[in-house]
């Protein structure tokens, strides 16, 4: 092909790939711009300790967004992930430190509970919105039962993790986020199970005709969400130095935003781990940017909303250009 120019290169890409990758690229551009602005205002961020400081609060959000991404790839939406992550921090701070075996059993039980939730959605045709909304109250109740008021103690190994300074000046939070994303990428994009997840989202009838059990697939997907939720909760409890079931109810909607920013869809069938990572980091960096900008108190929430809307609007434009 000897045609050049941006329009031609766009259409030269396979359409599906372009549709999947471009929204994430747009978000990536936004993320890099935000990082550069932050770096200009506050050059201290360009160091191991600086990047660790601003990235560490984002780790739990990024892994939680991975969970939501898996959920959305099968066409479901998880309205309970915020309280689930909160409940996990309560488990970590109350059980895992003092009685590690019971703690691990409790964490495994939470994953199983998620798998059963998947079974409920599949067998009884309950919409996932309703099932997960109901589950969120169960997570809240269990969390409050384990740790009635915020606090508790995190295990020592978790305490050591937040003090960790990896060699080559690589910030620890970035390593954690990339490993979590790489694993999610491998499972959703490079394994048979991952293909099943995505077909469950885009074309469940075809998946069933090819002889795959929808029940098993949905349960596996929900279990994966549960595992990622547990990981997110563990990193969060390291960050807050304890447990609090009410720590992050806002994650439920923020994780959905991160997936959409990363190129995911409400209708399912699309797994975008790297895009979701970029989306979560962008959302997390917004708080940092607003803190640096020194805007008037009344303007800060409005500016945050405007930036998110601008990026989403940019995505719509890109989608249209590709089509």
């Amino acid at each position, binding site marked *: 092909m000897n045609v050049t120019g941006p329009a031609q290169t766009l259409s030269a890409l396979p359409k599906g790939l372009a549709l999947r990758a471009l929204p994430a690229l747009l978000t990536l551009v936004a993320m890099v711009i935000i990082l550069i602005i932050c770096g200009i205002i*506050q050059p*201290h*961020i360009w160091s191991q300790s*600086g990047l660790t*400081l*601003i990235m*560490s*609060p*984002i780790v*739990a*959000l990024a892994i939680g967004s991975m969970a939501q991404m898996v959920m959305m790839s099968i066409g479901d939406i998880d309205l309970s992930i915020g309280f689930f992550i909160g409940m996990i921090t309560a488990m970590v701070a109350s059980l895992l430190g003092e009685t590690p075996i019971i703690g691990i059993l409790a964490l495994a039980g939470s994953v199983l509970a998620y798998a059963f939730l998947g079974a409920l959605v599949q067998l009884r045709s309950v919409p996932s919105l309703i099932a997960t909304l109901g589950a969120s109250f169960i997570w809240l109740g269990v969390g409050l039962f384990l740790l009635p008021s*915020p*606090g508790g103690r995190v295990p020592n190994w978790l305490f050591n993790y*937040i003090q960790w300074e990896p060699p080559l000046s690589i910030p620890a939070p970035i390593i954690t986020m990339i490993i979590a994303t790489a694993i999610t990428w491998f499972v959703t994009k490079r394994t048979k199970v991952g293909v099943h997840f995505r077909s469950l989202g885009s074309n469940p009838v075809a998946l069933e005709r090819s002889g795959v059990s929808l029940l098993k697939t949905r349960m596996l997907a929900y279990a994966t969400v549960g595992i990622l939720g547990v990981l997110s909760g563990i990193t*969060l409890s390291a*960050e*807050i*130095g*304890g447990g*609090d079931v009410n*720590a*992050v109810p*806002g*994650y439920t909607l923020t994780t959905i935003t991160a997936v959409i920013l990363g190129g995911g869809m409400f209708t399912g069938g699309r797994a975008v781990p790297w895009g979701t990572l970029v989306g979560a980091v962008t959302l*997390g960096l*917004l*708080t*940092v940017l*607003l*803190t*640096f900008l*020194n805007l008037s*108190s*009344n303007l*800060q*929430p409005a500016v*945050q909303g405007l930036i998110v809307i601008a990026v989403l609007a940019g995505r719509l434009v890109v989608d249209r250009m590709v089509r």
Partner: protein
Amino acid sequence: MGIGKFKCLAVIVALTAMFASTSSDTIAKEMKDAPSVALSNAFLGNAWRRSMITAFEEAAAKAEKDGIISSWKVSNAPGENSATEQIAQLKALLLEKPDILLVNPASATTLNPTLQKACDMGIVVVVFDSATDLECAYIVTNSFGDWARLSTQAVIDAIGGKGNVIVARGVQGSPPEIEMSAVQKKLLAANPDVKVVGEIVSFCDSAKAQEALLSTIASLPKVDGVIGCGEGLGAVQAFQTAGRDAPVVAFAPSGRALKFWGEGNGAPGSVAVMSDPGQGVAALFTAVNIYQGKKIPRVTIFPPVVVSDDERDKWIAAVGDDEIASWQWTKELVDAQIQANIDGKVADAALPPVPVR
């Protein structure tokens, strides 16, 4: 005249050196450079927090002009009182290395690792309007016991120490409510002629109190006072709706409630009490003292805002409609309050003057 100039310079240098060697130690201890200040607020969604920020911005701008602080910034975390957003915001603030960090936290525990990091960097950390078990942080707060004492005593005094009262309770079981309820019970026990004829749960909220009172008002005898925590407006409206005489109540010191009170609603002797949105300012001047090396107790108690009957009209002039009344703390007033804390005389300490705008 090159040599003369050189001599002159040498003398100056020698003098400076002498001066520096004799007194620099004491000077450095007494007067460090004016500090830079950052305030981290978890939430901007209600009138109290907005009044707190307004009061702080006014005071900080003045303190900067007076050279008490070198610079200041206010940072409100986005979201609904989210601890993780505030952690992200605090970590960004840490990169700027302020000398003083004032925190109105989203939660009493979840910020601990982040605030510990701030302490480790040598930043003076003062938490206000909340408790924290973090040992390196100083606390500036109002006591809920004082709040209950001031509002309950005012109602008892206004009804002359005898009569029928209703007790309005806050969020039952919450630590502030337990503390306030204990003080109310103690004061009621000390005044046996005051009879409790009913108890409602008002959540210290005007609308909820109105609803709760309307459903029980028909069964109540004559009521002289409502002992509560700032639900006066709704309580008076409930009695007015039922066509009965308004009792003595405790209002919230919001501009709206004060105006309503000023229009002659609520029996004489009513009062308005609430925790002080000026706490951010009190925390600022307390932190400056800590920064300058003064010995300050880890927890400093400041008085809640109290609007009495006779000073009501002065307050109405000073408080905007959407605002909550706040004390206008100055460095001198804060120093006096800190001294009262050190001497253990918080309950008897003089209240600041009514602010003028």
